[in-house]
């Protein structure tokens, strides 16, 4: 029973990280109908940026905030410089650019920081909270950070002028331009926010899985499965999907299939959703006239 509880709780931690990254994917998908395959590698790179700052002597939290800002700006610039010129290009062209970005970030990270695994600090004390044996303080802290971040994001999109405008630009770009919304700017902002989310996810997962250029490939796969499971257009679905998969992954790993096959679970879920219910559990089917 204790083991079971431990698996569920630490599943919540990784689940929160999947949820963050899945939400990043959903945000970009809603604005552009494209899945950013480079989202994970961008998050990995952000984590290296944070690592460099901390190594240079900056305390954790200033480095944390600065990394979020840098990631936001860099992603908005990437969108404007690399992705925006592709507007109107065939989907395959965009997909190839995304995969290109993935490889570029991966290689640059390996080139600058080497492929050796590095420990990444946690801002939380290493002593377990309340002397419990179920969950580490970092895991509790990561869940907390994730929940605060998600709440802030939902409040932003629900109640602020800019958030509402960004949602409008994603829902109906032509109508948005006709009321004067600068849609291209909103899409760049969306990229920035998605990268900021990814940066937090990276910094929260790195103390658990260690820092190395390929650290996010598995996380992205799970995030992608979570986004699909929840319905790729549904932000709530992505969050619920993320937490569900985090727990499922741990339970299956502990009791059924062992840790070696964990990646296969994500792939199996992706295939299962696409075959059985492509709109996801919480998605809606959009009919198109042809």
């Amino acid at each position, binding site marked *: 029973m204790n083991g079971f509880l431990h698996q569920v709780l630490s599943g919540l931690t990784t689940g929160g990280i999947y949820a963050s990254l899945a939400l990043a994917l959903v945000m970009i998908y809603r604005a552009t109908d494209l899945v950013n395959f480079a989202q994970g590698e961008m998050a990995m790179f952000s984590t290296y940026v944070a690592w460099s700052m901390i190594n240079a002597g900056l305390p954790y939290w200033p480095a944390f905030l600065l990394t979020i800002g840098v990631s936001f700006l860099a992603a908005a610039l990437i969108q404007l410089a690399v992705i925006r010129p592709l507007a109107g290009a065939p989907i395959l062209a965009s997909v190839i650019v995304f995969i290109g970005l993935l490889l570029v970030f991966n290689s640059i990270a390996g080139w600058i920081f080497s492929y050796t695994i590095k420990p990444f600090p946690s801002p939380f004390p290493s002593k377990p909270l309340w002397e419990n044996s179920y969950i580490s303080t970092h895991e509790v802290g990561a869940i907390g950070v994730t929940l605060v971040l998600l709440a802030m994001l939902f409040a932003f999109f629900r109640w602020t002028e800019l958030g*509402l*405008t960004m*949602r*409008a630009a994603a*829902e*109906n770009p*032509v*109508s*948005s*331009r*006709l*009321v*004067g*919304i*600068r*849609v291209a700017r909103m899409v760049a902002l969306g990229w920035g926010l998605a990268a900021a989310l990814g940066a937090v996810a990276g910094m929260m997962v790195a103390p658990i899985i260690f820092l190395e250029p390929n650290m996010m490939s598995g996380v992205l796969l799970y995030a992608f499965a979570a986004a699909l499971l929840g319905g790729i257009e549904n932000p709530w679905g992505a969050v619920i999907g993320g937490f569900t998969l985090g727990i499922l992954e741990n339970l299956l790993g502990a009791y059924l299939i062992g840790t070696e096959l964990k990646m296969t679970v994500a792939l199996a879920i992706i295939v299962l959703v696409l075959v059985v219910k492509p709109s996801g559990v919480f998605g809606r089917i959009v009919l198109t006239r042809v």
Partner: protein
Amino acid sequence: MTSLLEASDLRAFYGSTQVLHELAFSLDEGAITAILGANGAGKTTTLRAICGLVRCSGEVRFAGTRIAGKSTEDIVRLGIAHVPQNRGTFLSFTVEENLWLGAHISRDKSRRRSDFDRLYGYFPILGERRRQQAGTLSGGEQQMLALSRALMSRPRLLLLDEPSFGLAPITVQEIFRIMRRINAEEGVSILLVEQNVNLALGLSDHAYLLETGRLALSGPSQELRRHEAVRRSYFGS
């Protein structure tokens, strides 16, 4: 009367296909102008060309400023509001949020509030449904919402693409009555694209007739009503 918008040698393209051929027309300030024509004559494209939604060449001047080649977002800021044929509703937003988005270019919040009330005065049904999701409105209500959303930007020129499309005659009558009021009371000039020729000529001061992307005829609406070619093509007598 001075002209508010002037187009000359206007050509528009979809891909490599030219759909508007050297159009020239002008709209009088404060007037209602109609563009008539059959399906595929280029009426919608003309509106899309004015607000920069389609690739075009030629000269378009609005209140003295050259707008051909400007981005849609900038053209809207000069005072042109466009109600597209599909009504362009933000479906997952509430009625009031739709209006709020329509006021995107104005930064004056107190004016927004009074604009809400002014438009709910024209269309009381929108006031009753202000918290309702816009996607749940009927076609007529969505047309009213589209018109209101466009007016929230306080335009000098309103471009209306087939406002009667798919609506019950009684709804059409109401919408046309309010369009006339908006034109008369607020001095908003209107450029109207309409398949219902009778309705359009009844409302407008001046009209242009398009045929396959070319200007076929123009004149005061009263005269066009009596014109032989128009009667033959559109009234069947």
